[in-house]
């Protein structure tokens, strides 16, 4: 322990403690700005990784184009691509085409004005459920805007907005609570995050339902529009099971979300609703 009292070591310990103390006493707004600025240090890497993905995709497309011109290549005496390779490429393009067609087909079915954004990151800590999207205030993203999946199911809301990227807090996080109802019976309730951590991100709990509500597995749950945070009738999920609360005052239900929060690649931010 004698080493502890060496001067340089005192300075090192003091610097850490001072930093932590300053960060704790710093006003909330200044801390948020600092956090955003430090997070901005990762923008070059995000840019590189996004560009890399795009480049890989375009290489794939180029490969597809080359394989289309294979008769010419054959005529020039080059070896043709094997049939299985071509088949793989056709399958890949077919799935991409299907995904894009689905997105395009769904666009008119969503009654709100939306912006399609790409998911570029997630909260590194397992006790929070947040995703990072590739648009920020420069593209009109605002605090608290609802976020839905590409197919139109509820995903969460915008919780932090930077100039180039934003954070979305997912349904199931303790910081994302909102009013929802059983579509069939119109019983009001509030979706809360699971009481306990679960690795299954698709399960949340709906509480404060009246005791006389009739719940059956498979019933649809939608947002109620109360509170103004989310517009009415965004599909949330379906009832799995239900029970009366411990104090007997209300009914609780387990809901399976429609959106697969583990595999979000593109989401829609509601810009006008």
């Amino acid at each position, binding site marked *: 322990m004698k080493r502890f009292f060496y001067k340089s070591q005192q300075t090192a310990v003091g610097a850490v403690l001072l930093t932590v103390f300053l*960060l704790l006493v710093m006003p909330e707004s200044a801390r948020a700005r600092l*956090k955003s600025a430090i997070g901005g*240090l990762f923008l070059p890497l995000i840019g590189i990784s996004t560009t890399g993905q795009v480049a890989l995709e375009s290489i794939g497309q180029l490969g597809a184009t080359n394989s289309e011109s294979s008769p010419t290549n054959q005529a020039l005496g080059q070896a043709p691509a094997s049939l299985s390779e071509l088949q793989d490429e056709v399958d890949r393009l077919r799935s991409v085409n299907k995904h894009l067609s689905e997105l395009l087909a769904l666009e008119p079915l969503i009654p709100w004005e939306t912006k399609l954004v790409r998911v570029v990151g997630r909260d590194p800590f397992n006790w*929070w459920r947040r995703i990072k999207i590739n648009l920020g205030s420069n593209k009109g993203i605002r605090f608290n805007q609802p976020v839905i999946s590409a197919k139109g199911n509820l995903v969460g809301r915008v919780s932090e907005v930077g100039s180039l990227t934003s954070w979305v807090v997912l349904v199931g996080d303790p910081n994302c609570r909102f009013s929802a109802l059983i579509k069939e019976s119109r019983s009001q309730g509030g979706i809360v995050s699971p009481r*306990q951590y*679960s690795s299954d991100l698709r399960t949340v709990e709906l509480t404060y339902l009246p005791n006389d509500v009739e719940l059956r597995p498979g019933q649809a749950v939608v947002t109620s529009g109360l509170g103004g945070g989310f517009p009415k009738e965004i599909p949330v999920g379906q009832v799995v099971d239900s029970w009366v609360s411990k104090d007997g005052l209300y009914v609780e239900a387990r809901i399976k979300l429609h959106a697969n929060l*583990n595999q979000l690649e593109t989401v829609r931010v509601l810009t006008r609703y």
Partner: protein
Amino acid sequence: MTGRINKTLGLLIGAYLLVFLQSHWQGPRLWLGFQPDLTPALLVCAGLTLRAGHVSTSAMLTGLWLDSLSANPLGLSVLPLFIAGWAVFTFRDLIMRDELVAQFYLGTAAGAAVPLLQVWLLWLVGAAPLFGWEMGVWWLINALFCGVAVPVFARLAKLLDRWFSHPLHDPNRWPNENRQIVRGKH
């Protein structure tokens, strides 16, 4: 000195990339069901090889980077990471720090202690994240991952050090290639 600066730079670049990967690479989350956090292993490596100032700098920057990409209050991760690195630094002369097993145990201990300290601090500042018994499983697996990561990081650091530093002059080393007089026929 140059060697130490190189090591610190290497460690900071490694921490920067590691934090980015933990936030932006979804593979582990999809395979394991949780995102492993290997930053405690990095701080153990810093504690094993670097000086006090470098350990505190690494803890501060890694903690701030982690928190900037998370919903944790900014600065919350600094103290747990610093404690892990500092504990190793303080007692490193008493342990066989070059031994693989010792590194594994240190990494496992740090990997187990750091999340607990983070959760305790979160509870102190009044944040309400998700907790549950299921977290115990990933806490244990994450600690083991950190245990495995320490020897890997240590060997990687040595390799980088060898690539980017001049070898230290050792007059007792023989044959000394710098000083050896190679005699020819004449």
